């Protein structure tokens, strides 16, 4: 395209004007989107590139649908020569003291006197547009780097009141700020006949506001937690809730935990569900780190106990495991002694060829882990008023499985009966109970492969040592749903059932039965659970167990005792 040497063409002028006039709302959108949760765009999902509005394509930066409020805000900006000043203000609740913590200024400077030679022939609108794009890119990145971003995330994700509110003000004129602020000026972009300028003045130190005080408390484990998300989905669960509330990733980060966490970036932003790692309560045990010989690729746990959780990467194999619904209640956690008993027995086994695979069950959790992500997001967004949907329903089952002698297949069935995405795994009973009782366990469902060989042995021992009645008594009154009651009754029944024989074949029996059970339809087991169980049912169950046990004993003999267990 050839242009006259000195003057841009008329079409260019029009385009340049458009660039300037669209620059302001775009900058406004970028700034407020990152600071004010209520103005965050809804449409920022990956799969909606097809229906982009033209306005969203400006400057090649898709922000999602611009909230109507932003359009209204911008409508006052008639004259492009007016500055646009966006103030981000913190208001203290009790005395309404306002402090400007950030001020963004976007301006189109048009010097009255502009010599013709200054209009560079190279300033075609494409170049100008390109530079404006870069400017907005850096503006976007800068919004994420400045302290106000963190503050805004803290305020929006905090479940408890922090005593502050973040508001914004858009104006053309503002009194200069009095506090010492740092200024950053973006390089202006020449847009003939003027130039676009942007700058930000910000308080670099926001510690005076005591915003994150309640969040930086180290997470505590509540060992005798009584509560259910079914009772109050919006309830704030304090200690594991430390990580739950902080489904935004910057809680529980940055050196709070021991440093040997596994590195990965969280793909979380305002608009995408955080990875499971963010939201997991500190229930992960480092001990399992060594014990993962089987299915190890799926069960990599970060060694140290970390309040920030996230033992596994968000990618691929590990995410299926983290199926503890982050938005749901924590469970009663047993003492670590109980748990470690299992672990140490595992360690003494040099080669644990995994029992017939519980790992496939782990993989089967993949779909549910995908489901868990939206669940996490939903939980988080519930803070901003959206309903968490049925995810919290999953959880009641967890805390009820204490002495879970019952078959793991049932467990999965039970879970799915609550309408959640299926966990799709089988658990051996003793393992499951240890999961839930150990405060330092990793995700309860991680223990599949670890406990398998030892669970059978210490099974009966664990029955004795585990807290039984307390957990059951806790669980029953909690659950309002019939499922909870049914599970409680089931557990009670299983508790009272005689233990299986203490040898490896026993364990294989339980695991194999788990495999078999997996194949059974979930709906069948669902209906079982929902019915009240009578003694005859229990006896029937016992008979089934015995049959299975015999079957597996015979099988194990043929296998030749492949798995050695202490």
């Amino acid at each position, binding site marked *: 395209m050839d242009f006259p040497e000195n003057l841009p063409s008329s079409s260019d002028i029009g385009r340049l004007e458009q660039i300037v006039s669209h620059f302001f709302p775009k900058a406004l959108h970028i700034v407020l989107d990152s600071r004010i949760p209520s103005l965050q765009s809804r449409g920022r999902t990956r799969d909606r590139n097809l229906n982009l509005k033209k306005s969203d394509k400006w400057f090649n930066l898709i922000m999602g649908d611009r909230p109507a409020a932003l359009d209204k805000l911008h409508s006052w900006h008639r004259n492009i020569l007016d500055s646009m000043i966006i103030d981000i203000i913190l208001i203290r609740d009790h005395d309404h003291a306002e402090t400007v913590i950030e001020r963004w200024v976007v301006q189109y400077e048009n010097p009255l006197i502009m010599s013709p030679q200054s209009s560079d022939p190279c300033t075609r609108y494409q170049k100008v547009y390109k530079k404006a794009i870069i400017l907005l*890119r850096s503006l976007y*990145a800068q919004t994420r780097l400045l302290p106000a971003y963190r503050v805004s995330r803290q305020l929006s994700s905090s479940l408890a009141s922090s005593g502050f509110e973040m508001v914004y003000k858009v104006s053309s004129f503002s009194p200069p700020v009095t506090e010492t602020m740092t200024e950053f000026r973006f*390089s202006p972009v020449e847009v003939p006949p003027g130039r676009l300028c942007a700058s930000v003045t910000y308080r670099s130190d926001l510690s005076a506001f005591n915003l994150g005080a309640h969040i930086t408390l180290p997470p505590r484990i509540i060992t005798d937690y009584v509560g259910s998300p079914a009772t109050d989905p919006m309830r704030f669960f304090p200690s594991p809730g430390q990580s739950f509330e902080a489904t935004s990733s910057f809680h529980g980060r940055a050196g709070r935990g021991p440093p040997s966490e596994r590195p*990965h970036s969280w793909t979380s*932003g305002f608009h995408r569900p955080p990875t499971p790692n963010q939201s997991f309560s500190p229930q992960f045990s480092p*001990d399992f780190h060594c014990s993962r010989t089987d299915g190890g690729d799926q069960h990599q746990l970060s060694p140290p*106990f970390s309040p920030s959780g996230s033992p596994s990467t968000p990618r691929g194999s590990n995410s299926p495991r983290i199926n503890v619904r982050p938005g749901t209640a924590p469970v009663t956690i047993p003492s670590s002694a109980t748990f470690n008993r299992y672990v140490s027995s595992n360690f003494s086994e040099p080669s644990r060829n995994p029992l017939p695979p519980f790992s496939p069950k782990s993989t089967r959790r993949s779909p549910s882990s995908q489901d868990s992500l939206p669940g996490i997001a939903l939980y988080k967004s519930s803070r901003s008023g959206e309903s968490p949907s049925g995810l919290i329903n999953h959880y009641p089952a967890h805390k009820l499985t204490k002495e879970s002698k019952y078959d793991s297949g049932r467990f999965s069935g039970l879970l799915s009966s609550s309408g959640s995405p299926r966990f799709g795994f089988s658990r051996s009973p003793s393992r499951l109970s240890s999961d839930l009782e150990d405060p330092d366990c990793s995700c309860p469902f991680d223990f599949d492969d670890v406990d398998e060989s030892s669970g059978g042995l210490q099974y009966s021992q664990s029955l004795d040592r585990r807290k039984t009645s307390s957990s059951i008594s806790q669980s029953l009154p909690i659950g309002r749903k019939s499922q909870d009651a049914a599970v409680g009754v089931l557990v009670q029944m299983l508790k009272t059932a005689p233990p299986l024989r203490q040898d490896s074949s026993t364990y294989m029996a339980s695991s194999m039965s788990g495999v078999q059970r997996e194949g059974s339809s979930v709906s069948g087991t669902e209906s079982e659970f929902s019915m009240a169980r009578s003694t005859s049912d229990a006896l029937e169950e016992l008979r089934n167990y015995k049959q299975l046990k015999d079957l597996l004993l015979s099988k194990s003999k043929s296998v030749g005792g492949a798995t050695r267990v202490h």
Partner: protein
Amino acid sequence: MFSLLTVMADSGPKKAQYERDPYTHTVAHEALETKSEVESFEIREVLRCILHTIVFHRALGLIRPKDIDLELFDITYVQCGEIEVEKKIDDKIEQFVTWIGKHPNKKSQICLTFYEVKTKQPSWFTNKIERLYWEQWNINLSAFQPPTKPPVGKSHHSKLVMDPGEESEDISSRRTLLEQSLQEVLFQIIKFVNEKKDHVPPINDGVIYCPFEITFPSSSDSTFGMDMLKRMLHSGGHPSMLS
């Protein structure tokens, strides 16, 4: 087994510098040297953050930005959202980390270079494709291996948390320092991409991000220099200012 690193970030436009000084990666801007050390698993986070931030500013096609929160630090950076970019960067980082693991106690540099592809008439060079490099970012790291300490939280079940006290204090203070440094680096990147925009090639239709390559010395520094020289020769004449 930890390996600790120091991180430095340099950046500078390279077009004019190539002729003068192809081997030294001239620093056009203040080098930001951090005194803090980076553990091996932090390398990935740090590198990913830096590389993505740079590429984000050079992905001038229609993109949907993706905010990523670092796990280890209180920092959020922006990715351009393109899967190929992410994969490419991740692959390179993995290669680099592997390389670092094999060559501890060594200074190394990872370079992110943007180029423009120009097809040329077949000439003496069999390859018709010509790459004109127009920007290069250098990230200098030096890795050294401290005395081995036992991994944390390994077998003893009672030691579920790292011992509070000296060890974790050191590490957390180091990490805080590193976080501040990383933040500084990101500010620098933003500052630099703002300052110089003219050399950026025009946006082509359908091209989302400027093609780039990430290189690091695969064996020694001298070889790395040779690689640079080869690349220089390969690219034909000196890269001219692209308008």
